[in-house]
């Protein structure tokens, strides 16, 4: 460094040397701290360039302008290089810091336990959404229900065998005529009593049978039923609705079949079958490849359906000369078994958290 007693040189070679010294010092600085020292030394108030700049004033007027320009360019060049070097060093240091701050991203983090809806609830919502998207609505009703709503209104007369205590759970005393609903059909009756057609509703919910308790039967289970009452409704509309639901539940390539059947509340009545999703019909008549799922029948029964019996419409105050309709119903548990391979219905009611947690993702 130059002593104060020495007059500052402002000649071109002297200035070039000062610039060169500064740039070399910046380049040599390996950290922000070293660069700070180099900055003070080469751009600070006591730096050669600063002193030279101050010396300009002492020069004769003719030299002053030239020297001023020379020093201006030199100081600008030094400042530019300093800024560049600062950028380089801070980027390098940040990069180093980021490496040093690395974490193990595979460390487990658990803010809350893993929650889960019951798969039956999830499926009820999913099936309901299929109908909501079609403009239908979801209707609900009580589970302990009047016998009239569960049976008589649905053309199951007083002598129907399903009305016995071996099939139906009765609220005591029996002659008070209240039962635990054996299907969600009384909700359909309530809807018809409450609303004017057109009616497009689905009724999901819990139902009860005095049934055995095994891998494919539980006495308390869930159904979703649908009811459509409008002018000009036919079995073709029922078929279209069920085909749409089947595709929404099981994919576009699902095959359905409507097979004539008997129910008191519908006429004509049918059962709707799904093509066996395990063997796709390959087990039929082929004893070498039996299918346990469809018992080698090629089809599995999904639910019941039909055209609403005009006797039901009359009991609900709807004129069958003006309106017709269809109804259908299927078990949610059964649908879950088909969709998600749930093998044993007892798991659905035993309350083991692992069962509830077993369904994942959007396609519940």
């Amino acid at each position, binding site marked *: 460094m130059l002593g104060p007693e020495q007059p500052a040189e402002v000649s071109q070679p002297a200035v070039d040397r000062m610039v060169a010294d500064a740039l070399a010092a910046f380049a040599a600085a390996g950290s922000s701290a070293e660069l700070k020292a180099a900055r003070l030394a080469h751009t600070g108030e006591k730096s050669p360039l600063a002193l030279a700049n101050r010396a300009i004033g002492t020069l004769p007027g003719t030299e002053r302008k030239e020297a001023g320009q020379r020093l201006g360019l030199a100081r600008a060049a030094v400042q530019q290089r300093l800024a560049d070097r600062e950028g380089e060093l801070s980027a390098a240091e940040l990069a180093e810091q980021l490496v040093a701050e690395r974490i193990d991203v595979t460390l487990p983090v658990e803010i809350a336990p*893993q929650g889960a809806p019951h798969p039956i609830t999830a499926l009820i919502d999913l099936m309901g959404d299929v109908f909501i998207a079609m403009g239908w609505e979801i209707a609900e009703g009580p589970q302990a229900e009047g016998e009239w709503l569960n049976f008589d209104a649905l053309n199951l007369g007083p002598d129907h065998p399903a009305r016995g205590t071996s099939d139906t759970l009765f609220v005591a005393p029996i002659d008070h005529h209240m039962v635990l609903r054996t299907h969600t059909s009384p909700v359909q009756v309530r809807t018809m009593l409450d609303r004017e057609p057109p009616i497009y509703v689905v009724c999901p919910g819990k139902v009860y049978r005095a049934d055995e308790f095994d891998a494919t039967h539980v006495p308390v289970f869930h159904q979703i039923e649908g009811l459509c009452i409008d002018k000009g409704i036919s079995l*073709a509309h029922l078929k279209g609705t069920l085909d749409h639901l089947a595709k929404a539940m099981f994919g576009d390539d699902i095959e359905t079949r409507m097979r004539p059947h008997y129910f008191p509340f519908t006429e004509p009545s049918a059962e709707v079958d799904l093509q066996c999703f395990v063997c796709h019909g390959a087990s039929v008549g082929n004893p070498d490849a039996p299918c346990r799922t469809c018992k080698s029948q090629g089809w599995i029964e999904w639910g019941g359906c039909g055209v609403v019996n005009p006797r039901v419409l009359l009991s609900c105050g709807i004129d069958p000369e003006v309106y017709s309709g269809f109804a259908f119903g299927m078990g949610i548990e059964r649908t879950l078994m088909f969709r998600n391979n749930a093998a044993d219905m007892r798991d659905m009611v035993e309350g083991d958290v692992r069962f509830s947690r077993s369904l994942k993702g959007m396609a519940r």
Partner: protein
Amino acid sequence: MRAPLSWLAEHVDLPAGMTGRELAEVLIRAGLEVETVEAVGADISGPVVVGRILAFVDEPQKNGKTIRWVQVDVGTEHNEPHSDYAQGCRSVVCGAHNFAVGDLVVVSLPGAVLAGGFAIAARRTYGHVSDGMICAEDELGIGHDHSGIIVLPAHDGAGRALEPGDDPAGVLHLRDDVLDIDVSPDIGYCLSIRGLAREAGQNLGRRFTDVIDRPTPAAVADGYPVRLDDAACPLFVALTVTGIHPSRPSPRWLARRLVMAGMRSISLAVDITNYVMLETGQPLHAYDASLLNGPIVVRKAGAGEVLVTLDDVTRTLSADDLLITDDTGAIGLAGVMGGQSTELRATTTEVVVEAANFDPVTISHTLRRHNLPSEASKRFHRGVDPNAAYSAAHLAARLLVELAGGTLAIGETVAGELPTMPMQTIDAGLPAAILGVGVLAERVVEILRESGCDVTVAEPDEADGHRLALVPPTWRPDLRDPYDYVEEVGRKVGFDQIPSVVPAAPVGRGLTRTQAGRRAINTALVASGFVELLTFPFGSADDLDRMGVPGDDQRRALVRLANPLAETQPYLRTSILPGLFAAVNRNTSRANDDLALYESGTVFLAGSGEAAPIPSVGHRPTAAELAAIEAALPRQPWYLAAVLCGHWRRAGWDGPAEPAGWRQAFAFADGAAGAVGAHLERGRASTAPWHPGRCAELVLGGEVIGHAGELHPDVIRAFGLPARTAAVELDLDALLRLAPDGGVIAPVSGHPVAKEDVALVVADSVSVADVERALSDGAGELLESINLFDVFTGGQVPPGHRSLAFALRFRASDRTLTDVETAAAKESAVALAGERCGAVLRAF
């Protein structure tokens, strides 16, 4: 109904070579539930042939048995050379003795596989090499008899002489396809070969021959005397057959068909009545004529009357039971089961054959009352073709003559008469309109006529088009309403012909507020870590006792079931918690120890205690009738409940374990309410089943809608729950009813916030919520938020007190607050807390 294909083929001209499975497809399409098609005898393969006994030697054995060493001619193709017989033979060991030289038997030769996969090979036994086996019924799967081997007749069914080496399958009726059909209640006529053959014929377009071919005559009383004293028996045919040989066995074809149809062969006369029933659908009963006393009278039972039925059970009869009686009293439960006193014996030579018709409702009551499902009652309670009785009686009589050597007595009895079938008129266009597929009027008429209906086509009317006047055949009592005929047409057209059309519903309103709210709550609870369960909604008074629920609690308003699934849980639940407690037990027993379980569902609170009326049908019930039903029903609110135990958060690398307890129970309630925009307030409460010091009532809009907290230690012990188990139960309907509906969005202030902290010392009895409310009320509208950030005891805080530290944030919507304004708001907050709660500002 199990129907052998060969039997059906005798009544309908099936296409040549049609298999049982092919026919099943046709019947399924027509609405018959064919459950299985069993290929009977398909498991028997390899050389099984007719053999003639040439000679045998009885050889006593050391084990006491005597075996026969038999030479049997099995035809030139299968015989081995033998020095004694030019044609050769096979030599086999046989344990049976029921045959003689010259008899024709069934021989399975090495290489054959018999029923059950029993493979035949030449084997050394009793000092001989047995080169095959002479078969008994059970070995061929055609019967259960193993008392001796099968001895074949000399001729087959077509009269051709059987020869050694012939295939015995035909004469044994070894192979057949048997269709097992679950017949739905409306098509009782399909519980017969006749009905199924008719359906097959109609759906295949092939000729059907009706075995019921004798018109029912007008009443005649020339046979055994019969009197009908009850309208539930409209028709009774009685024929008498004399001189039957009681010891004659059932011919093989008859017994075999019964077995294939799922019945047992009992005795010839009984087998004949069963055979005719299976073929025609008309149940028959045969009485030993020598045991009948006086005329047969059909009447209702008298009080206390008893009958010993064929199954050897003494039954006390009800006044609604229809009986067949004679002078001695009841001799049969009409249409359900015969009585023991007149049943056929080994000595019976004269029988009276009954073919009667009974009212389906009467029969179904009797069969349910006595829990007596029988082949007869199965048919009568669905309805039997009244016109079948007369022909069926004659079919049975003919078989008794032909097979049992009997003689049909001259003179028959026909009591009562055929009922008239109801007429219905429909528009010929109705089937097309309801099925949604084009069916021409001509086709409708054709189908219904093929189904046996009497169809009269009215002249086309300009307005209505073709009207059809329809009378169903006697075997179709199910054809009654216009839509019944629509279904009949649909079944014959084929449901697979119906197009698939999605109906256009009018615009819908989406989920109701309640439904959307429940879903939002479920989503929020699941996201915050709770697992939903669905438990059976049954319970017991013992559950409530163990929960410590007092007698006057609304949860004691129990609804009892008349026929509960389990006597230990005879009530509908009034609380979801016991079900969740049981689920906790089940999970912890399976080492699922950290539990945050919830269930959302209805509980049942007893209604008025009145009976629900049963209004008449065919018209809308009155408003009063509907209101009476509603009033009688239990109240069924939707509840939400949760149980927590074990760890909420397990010990991890980043922190210690966090137990699950009352904090999460409160958070559950807050989370459920928050999901629908509601803010619950908590107040101290002391309610079962909770810990009296750790129970909060959950308050919304001034209503207590539930409780949350740690369970009472006694309850934890009584239910075997983990220590410190916590629970919540709240009325979800009330929460949704009281939840806000969106509210108003206020402008967002851009002015700076002013923050102030205050620490207040209060007595332990003062709740945080009260202090917070006082501060909030005192601070006024400038207060933006308040947050409890510390609870401190000890140190300078006097005993019985705690220090509560709150962070207050103030902000105005229209200006920057001055220090003076902020300080004033804070002072006023502290002042009100002092006034209401005795809070003292703590000096730091």
